[in-house]
């Protein structure tokens, strides 16, 4: 039991622009996160401890920083930079930090001329003349993922991250290979590098993603018979309890290109996957792969028929890049920083 304070790692947990779900997820890991205290001191956690930036400055260094939320404002950017230079290990926690997340969809509407929510700052400039009153941090020209402004060492995808992989991350990064047995989740589905690091305490290779290797289909409980895409159905039109693969029923389900790790959570509830774990390992662009996989299985060789089917599809970008527009959409993303 590493009760010796010297051994203890220092943690920082921070959310930029986003909901608090990621922090809740950390807070909630089997309601046992308090047992972390045996391995680590939480040195900076504004949401729960009310830590302020000067508390961070007091620390000479942070061992592991769990950063969640997308980069939307100048404030977020500063925070990311501050935390990066303090922290030895930077973990992008949750879809927003890892991929830009749903806030990233803003980039889409901004590309089509409409200038997001920026009128807030515009007013600022107009009224700058007025008597003193607080400024707002400027908005970034477009929503970014964490990896696009600082180097990120590890990713914990998911919206919110699933407990087992979040816990896997904490175990392998924080617990020096002596995580309490009662808390370790079934390591079977973990990629072996991660599994090994949990037991050995040797850090997994930089840049690893705390999620499965295959795609969601591998852990999805639904029965796959034969991919043949006949008619496009929208979720409100289909009522299904047959337990058959949703894609085979004409619902666009992104499980086929999405990294495994949720255990087929949405499909188990009867809803198509939307890819909150990001693209699978070898995929170049999730949207392109979805197009290819679905298109190839169209059940027709007649141009008109195909055109008719395609005509029904709505909002491909908003579906295929729901969580990943800023980082993984080939045409819309900027390269990661390192």
């Amino acid at each position, binding site marked *: 039991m590493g009760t010796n304070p010297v051994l203890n790692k220092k943690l920082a947990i921070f959310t930029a*622009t986003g909901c608090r779900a990621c922090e809740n997820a950390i807070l*909630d890991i089997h*309601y046992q996160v308090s047992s972390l205290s045996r391995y680590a001191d939480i040195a900076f956690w504004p*949401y729960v401890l009310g830590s302020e930036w000067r508390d961070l400055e007091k620390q000479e260094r942070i061992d592991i920083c769990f950063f969640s939320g997308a980069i939307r404002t100048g404030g977020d950017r500063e925070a990311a930079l501050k935390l990066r230079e303090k922290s030895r290990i930077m973990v992008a926690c949750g879809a927003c930090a890892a991929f830009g997340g749903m806030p990233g969809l803003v980039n889409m509407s901004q590309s089509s001329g409409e200038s997001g929510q920026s009128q*807030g700052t515009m007013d600022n400039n107009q009224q700058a003349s007025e008597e003193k009153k607080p400024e707002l941090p400027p908005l970034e020209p477009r929503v970014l993922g964490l990896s696009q402004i600082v180097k990120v060492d590890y990713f914990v995808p998911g919206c919110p991250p699933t407990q087992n992989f979040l816990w896997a991350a904490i175990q392998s990064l924080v617990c020096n290979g002596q995580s309490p047995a009662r808390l370790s989740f079934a390591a079977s589905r973990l990629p072996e590098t991660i599994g090994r690091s949990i037991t050995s305490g040797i850090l997994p290779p930089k840049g690893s993603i705390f999620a499965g290797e295959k795609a969601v289909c591998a852990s999805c409980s639904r029965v796959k018979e034969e991919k043949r895409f006949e008619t496009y159905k929208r979720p409100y039109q289909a009522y299904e309890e047959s337990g058959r693969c949703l894609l085979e029923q004409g619902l666009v389900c992104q499980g086929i290109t999405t990294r495994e790790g949720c255990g087929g959570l949405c499909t188990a509830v009867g809803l198509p996957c939307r890819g909150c774990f990001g693209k699978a390992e070898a995929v170049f662009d999730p949207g392109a792969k979805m197009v290819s996989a679905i298109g190839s299985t169209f059940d027709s060789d007649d141009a008109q028929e195909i055109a008719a089917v395609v005509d029904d599809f709505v909002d491909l970008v908003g579906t295929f890049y729901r969580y990943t527009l800023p980082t993984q959409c080939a045409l819309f993303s900027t390269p990661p920083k390192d």
Partner: protein
Amino acid sequence: MTFEPLRWQEDPVRIAVFHDTEYLQAYFQVTAPRDIEWICKGRPVEELPRILTILSPSHHLASAKALDRLFGVEPPPMARNMREALLQAHIFRHHLRKLYFLISSRHNPFLDRQKRGNRGEPQLFPPHFLDEIMHHEALSQEAATILGGRCDHPLSAVTGGVSRFLKEDHYHRLSEIAEFCLKFAMRVGEFLRDEIFGDGKALDALGSTYGQNLQVEPMVSLTLAEKDGNVVLRDPVGKEMDRFSPDMMFEKIGFHNESWTHEPFAYIKGTSENATRKVQEQIGNIFHSEFPIPNPEFFFVGPLARLNSGEALGYPLAEEERQRLIEVLGPFPHFGVVAAYWALLVELVQAAEKMTGLYAQEKLTGPAIRTIPSEMGQVGHAVLESPQGLIFHHYRTDQKGIVEEVEVLGTGTGNNALRCLLTQKAVDISQARGEAWEETKNRIEISLLPF
């Protein structure tokens, strides 16, 4: 002077305090836009529950409700129960979490007990109670996960119902959880009464945080009447001043944008001199751009607003708790922080009671989980009492059901004026007492938490 970041706040917020001519002017700023409109525009409308769920689980439910309206379908009874059950689980979880924050407010709850001694940190009181809270936190999460498919960002509520049946073992577990939660709710009640609410000196156990109860000027409260599903406005003395159907929402409620915050101010179209002036005085001159009407009437939402109806609750234990509140603090309406915390407690008990009623197999079984819509409307809206207060959704789509317009009245907007008010109050008080800035921050956080 600015406080950033702030504890326990869902949105990214900061407090900016300015030395105005004669007094300190506090600004409660929301520093990042929500972008909801921009995220939702162009999405298929049936996806909204899965998108807006990032705001909070109750927004997920409200969105599904709005879709029922938009597609003109009536969810089967089982589905309605399941949604309700999910909502109660989240109310329980939400209130419990806030009380947890309250109790642990003076300590770092993540400090190893063995270390507390040698670090001179005060022991948690009572030992292990926080762990128990966490435990039941987790139980309510488990319930929410069973019902919602996921705890944060649930997804089971869909157009016209829910997306899945429950399985055998689920029923058993749910009723079990409900039992635990109810028992524990009572314990929390006892604990809070003995340790915190009871009398002034117990409050000091939490330090000077609120040696004296922080009160705001009486405000109008906006709530949803469960019986007829109408929205109700109660004036500061608690008597009903307006009752209208959700369709009227935007005729009655207006929004006002300030350049220094991303959160708009919601106000009632229609003015009432006296109350407003007092509120205005307290907020000070934070408004720089003109309101469309001279003296806008501000309102607030949330547990306290709900209880301010003064009506008796349908659930014995909760009603009991409410009576105790009245004994100590006097009859409703209340506008104090302690009352707000106590309101949380009352609703915690109520949620637990509702859960015990709802988490029964017969309630959560049925022939159908969804009704598939036959046609598609183009406008839908819904109003819902979320843990934090009344929320309202309104969508407009094109022929293909692609979202063209989304209006979401969240609790952040609804309580924006109140939060500014509380912040200013807290600052004034700690000024009067000449406290250090840390204290001020602490005071602000504690007083914002229960709303």
